[in-house]
């Protein structure tokens, strides 16, 4: 849940990158970390295994600057994608203000995408959050792979996006779609805050 300090006029929001294992959640944060000026970001924390798979979470604090007179900060988290890490996913999801769902565009990964999306909906519901009324952005990553291996963004929408969330094709390693996804999620989170529905 967003934290708002009316005395020092500061807002802090939490966005979680969710999705199946190896879909590119950590790559999103690495790209953001590499592009944002040092003065506007904190240290990126990664709790990963020896083979660089996310074990608990990655964490990147961003300073967006002053918005409506409030110094606005976003905390970006990723979750571990593998199915057996659901307990840690639930912990990271606590108090989130918005989600970027990073799906793998490869045709052979569609079952994993669907399972992860269902898992997101279930875990949010356990925290009393209805995904239909929550800021979610769909990102279809790995659109740079050969066309015979992947689904197009329209096909991905048909497969996953029956709720009509905003969606973006992406190549997270090269940054395509990364900025757009974060921007869309930020907008939705702050719109919700402006409507006064999620103030701590």
């Amino acid at each position, binding site marked *: *849940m967003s*934290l*708002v*300090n*009316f*005395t*020092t006029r*500061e*807002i*802090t929001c*939490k966005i979680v990158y969710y999705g199946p294992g190896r879909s590119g959640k950590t790559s999103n944060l690495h790209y953001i970390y590499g*592009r*944002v*000026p040092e003065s*506007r*970001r*904190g*240290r990126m*924390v990664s*709790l990963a295994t020896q083979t660089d798979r996310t074990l*608990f*979470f990655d*964490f990147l*604090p*961003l*300073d*967006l*600057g*002053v*918005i*409506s*007179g*409030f110094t*606005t*900060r976003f*905390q970006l*988290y990723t979750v571990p994608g593998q199915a057996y890490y659901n*307990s*840690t996913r639930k*912990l*990271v999801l*606590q*108090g*989130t203000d918005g989600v970027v769902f990073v799906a793998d565009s490869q045709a052979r990964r569609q079952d994993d995408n669907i399972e992860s999306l269902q898992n997101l909906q279930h875990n949010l519901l356990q925290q009393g959050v209805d995904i239909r009324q929550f800021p979610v952005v769909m990102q279809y990553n790995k659109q740079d792979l050969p066309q015979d291996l992947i689904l197009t963004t329209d096909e991905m929408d048909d497969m996953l996006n029956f709720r009509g969330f905003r969606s973006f094709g992406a190549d997270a390693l090269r940054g395509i779609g990364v*900025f757009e996804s*974060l*921007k869309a999620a*930020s*907008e939705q989170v*702050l*719109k919700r*805050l*402006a409507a*006064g529905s999620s*103030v*701590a």
Partner: protein
Amino acid sequence: MRAIESWVTGPLQTFVNESAARLTLLMTGSGQVIAQHGFARSLDVMSAAALGAGIMASSQEIAHLIGWPEFQVLVHQGSRHSHFLALVDVPAGRWIGLVVFGRETKLGVVRYFFDRMIDELATAAPRTPPPRKVLAADFETELHRSLRTLFGR
């Protein structure tokens, strides 16, 4: 010292003075910083809060797995510094305290004054909810400008 809510400052200041703690953070269960003492860079504070909340949350899950109600306090002892994590129940909800302390004080002293701080926070907490309207309707222009600056495009 910085605090999101001004009523937190008094009890936190008293705790810091009495316990001789080097660093102290109060945060929500999701790792959002409520108050801090002794952290120089605000963004490093966020990392510490995220990690502290993660430790506490995963420990609570372990407690549930083994059939215990919860761990109220966790202590990690180091050779020069130790850290102390504890649940803090206030009228606004459940927070977490993270305290780093050195050899100049003792765990018992930290814990004693931490418990006193919790009592003082419960007394000092306001009973009225915070104002709900935050951002102006036209905040999106400023958001887009900030994101363009952030990403250089």
